[in-house]
C-alpha cells in the first residue's frame, strides 16, 4: 500500500495553510534570539503576515477540495470554514496582544511562535480525517496553549493557570487516546469514513458495547477541550490566571477546533450508532448550560465571568451536537463563528482596561467607562448584547438556528432549558452594561491609555464580524449548511 507512494502537487496544495504557518512560526522562533527587545514588534508583524498568508491559502485550498496524504487530511467545506475561523482568531489575538505585552514588558518572539503553532495544531485538527492525525493536531495546539497560559512566568496566577490547564488537559487527552485505541481495536482502522462504513455494514459484527465505551471515552477528552460540564472545572481558573489576550485566544480558537473535531468524529464516524452517544451529549448540554449560567451570576471578576459565560455557550453548542443532524452541525458552525467574534472582542476590551499586572478586572472597574472612553464602552456593549443574543447581532441568529435545529429534532426540553438559561444570562451581561453606563467613574481613577492601533483594529474587526453575522447571516449559514450536510453523507 505504501510502496511507490508519492503525494501529488494537489495534496501539498491542500496542506498549504499548515505549511505556511509552520514555516512562519519556525522562522520567528529562529529569529527571536537574534532580535533585540526593541525590535520584537517586527516579529509580531511577521506573525501577522504569516497568518494572513495562511488565511489566503486556506481559502484557495478550497478550490481543489479532496483528501490528501493517504486520506489523513481532508479539505472540504467544513475544514475550510474552521480553518478560516481559527486563523482569524489567531490574527485578532496577535493584533490585540501588542499593548498588553508592551505594558508587561513581555514582548517576545516566543509568544507569536506559540500562537502560530497553536493555530497550526487547530488547522490540522479541523481538517483531520483520521483519529491519530486528529490527536497530533490536538496536542500541537494544546501544548502551545499550555505554555501561553503561563506566559508571564513570574506571575503566580499565570503559573497556576498553566499548571491546571496542563494537568487536566493531558489527563483528558489520555482518555481521548484510550478511546481511539479501542476504536482501532474494534474496527482495525482509524480513518473516520472507514469507521463509519464498518459500523454501518450489517455483515460485520462489531461489539456495540466496546464502540459505545470508546465513544464515551473520546467524549471525555473532547468535553474537556471545549469546557463542557462536568469537565469544565479548569476553565474559570485558567481564564482568570492566563494573560487576557491568551484567554481570548483559548476561549475561541481551541474551542472552535474542539467542537469541529467533536462534530466530525461523532457525525461522520459514529453517525450510525447515534443512539449510543446522543444521551450523554444531551446530559452534558443540559448540565453545561445550567452550571455555566448560574455560576456566572455570582462572579465579580470580569475574566472569571466571561469564563463561566464561555462554559454556558459551550452548552448551547452542545445542544446543536445533541441533534446529531446536518442542520444541527450547521447551527453549531454558525454559532462558533459568531461566538469567536463576540467573545474575542469582549476579552480584548477586558485586556485594554485591565491595566498593569491585570489588577483592574473587577466589575466595579468598569464604572464610568462610557464617559472615560465612549468608543470602548460602545463596542463592549455590542459584544455583550451579542452574547445575550439580541437581534441584529450574530449571537441572536446563532441561538435561533441552534434552537430551531433542536426543535426539529424533538429536543424540546433542551430548547426550553436553553431559552430559560439565556434569560438568566441576560442578567449578568446587562449588569456589566449598567455599570459602564450608569455608575459614575471613581474619583482619582487613573486615565485609561488610548486604544493602540492593533487593539483598535481587533476591536473594530470583531464588532463588524459580530454585526455582519447578525445582519447578513445567510451567506455564512448557507455555506455552513452545505458543509454540515457533507459530514453525514
Amino acid at each position: 500500500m505504501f510502496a511507490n507512494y508519492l503525494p501529488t502537487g494537489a495534496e501539498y496544495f491542500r496542506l498549504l495553510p499548515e505549511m505556511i504557518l509552520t514555516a512562519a512560526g519556525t522562522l520567528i522562533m529562529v529569529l527571536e534570539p537574534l532580535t533585540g527587545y526593541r525590535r520584537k514588534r517586527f516579529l509580531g508583524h511577521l506573525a501577522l503576515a504569516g497568518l494572513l498568508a495562511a488565511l489566503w491559502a486556506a481559502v484557495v485550498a478550497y478550490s481543489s477540495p479532496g483528501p490528501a496524504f493517504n486520506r489523513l487530511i481532508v479539505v472540504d467545506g467544513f475544514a475550510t470554514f474552521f480553518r478560516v475561523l481559527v486563523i482569524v482568531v489567531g490574527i485578532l489575538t496577535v493584533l490585540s496582544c501588542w499593548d498588553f505585552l508592551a505594558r508587561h514588558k513581555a514582548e517576545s518572539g516566543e509568544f507569536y511562535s506559540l500562537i502560530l503553532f497553536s493555530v497550526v495544531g487547530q488547522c490540522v485538527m479541523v481538517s483531520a480525517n483520521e483519529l491519530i492525525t486528529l490527536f497530533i493536531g490536538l496536542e500541537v495546539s494544546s501544548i502551545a496553549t499550555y505554555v501561553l497560559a503561563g506566559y508571564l512566568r513570574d506571575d503566580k496566577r499565570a503559573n497556576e493557570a498553566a499548571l491546571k490547564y496542563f494537568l487536566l488537559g493531558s489527563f483528558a487527552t489520555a482518555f481521548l487516546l484510550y478511546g481511539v485505541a479501542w476504536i482501532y481495536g474494534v474496527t482495525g482502522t482509524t480513518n473516520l469514513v472507514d469507521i463509519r462504513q464498518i459500523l454501518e455494514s450489517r455483515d460485520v459484527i462489531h461489539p456495540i458495547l466496546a464502540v459505545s465505551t470508546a465513544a464515551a471515552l473520546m467524549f471525555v477528552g473532547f468535553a474537556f477541550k471545549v469546557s463542557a460540564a462536568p469537565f469544565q472545572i479548569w476553565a474559570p481558573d485558567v481564564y482568570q490566571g492566563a494573560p487576557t489576550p491568551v484567554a481570548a485566544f483559548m476561549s475561541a480558537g481551541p474551542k472552535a477546533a474542539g467542537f469541529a473535531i467533536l462534530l466530525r468524529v461523532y457525525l461522520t464516524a459514529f453517525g450510525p450508532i447515534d443512539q449510543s452517544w446522543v444521551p450523554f451529549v444531551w446530559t452534558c448540554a443540559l448540565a453545561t448550560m445550567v452550571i455555566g449560567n448560574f455560576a456566572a451570576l455570582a462572579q465579580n471578576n470580569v475574566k472569571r465571568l466571561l469564563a463561566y459565560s464561555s462554559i454556558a455557550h459551550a452548552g448551547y453548542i452542545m445542544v446543536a451536537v445533541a441533534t446529531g443532524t446536518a442542520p444541527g452541525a450547521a447551527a453549531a458552525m454558525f454559532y462558533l463563528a459568531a461566538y469567536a467574534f463576540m467573545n474575542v472582542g469582549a476579552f480584548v476590551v477586558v485586556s485594554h482596561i485591565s491595566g498593569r499586572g491585570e489588577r483592574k478586572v473587577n466589575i466595579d472597574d468598569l464604572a464610568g467607562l462610557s464617559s472615560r472612553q465612549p468608543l470602548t464602552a460602545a463596542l463592549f456593549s455590542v459584544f455583550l448584547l451579542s452574547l445575550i443574543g439580541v437581534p441584529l447581532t450574530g449571537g441572536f441568529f446563532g441561538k435561533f438556528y441552534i434552537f430551531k435545529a433542536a426543535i426539529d429534532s424533538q429536543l424540546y426540553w433542551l430548547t426550553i432549558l436553553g431559552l430559560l438559561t439565556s434569560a438568566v444570562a441576560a442578567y449578568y451581561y446587562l449588569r456589566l452594561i449598567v455599570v459602564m453606563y450608569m455608575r459614575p467613574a471613581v474619583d482619582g481613577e487613573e486615565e485609561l491609555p488610548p486604544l493602540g492601533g492593533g487593539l483598535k483594529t481587533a476591536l473594530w474587526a470583531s464588532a463588524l464580524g459580530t454585526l455582519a453575522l447578525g445582519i447578513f447571516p445567510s451567506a455564512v449559514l448557507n455555506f455552513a449548511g452545505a458543509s454540515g450536510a457533507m459530514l453525514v453523507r
Partner: protein
Amino acid sequence: MTMTSVPLSWYLILSAVLFTLGVAGFLFRRNIITVFMSIELMLNAVNLSFVAFSYQWRQVDGHVYTFFVMVVAAAEAAVGLAIILTVFKNRATLQIDDVDSMKN
C-alpha cells in the same frame, strides 16, 4: 509463530488496569510530580493497547501510533516539567492543594 501466545484479552486487561491506576493516581495523589507521572502511566497503558490491537490485526499501524504517542508524551513531559519548575520557583511547594489562589 509461537507455540503458546498470550491471548489478546490479557494485554487489554493489563492495559485497563494500568490506565485505571493512572486515573486513581491522578485523582488521589497530592504531589504534582506524582500526578504528572500518573498521566504518563495512562498514556503508556494506551500504548500497550495499541500494540496489542496492532498485533491482533496483523498491521504495523498500531506500532506507528505508539511512536506518535511517545513523542507527544515526551513533548508534554518537557512542557509540563517546565511549568512545574516555574510553579515551584514562585511558591516553593509541590503540593497540589497549595496551588489554589484563584477564587472570586
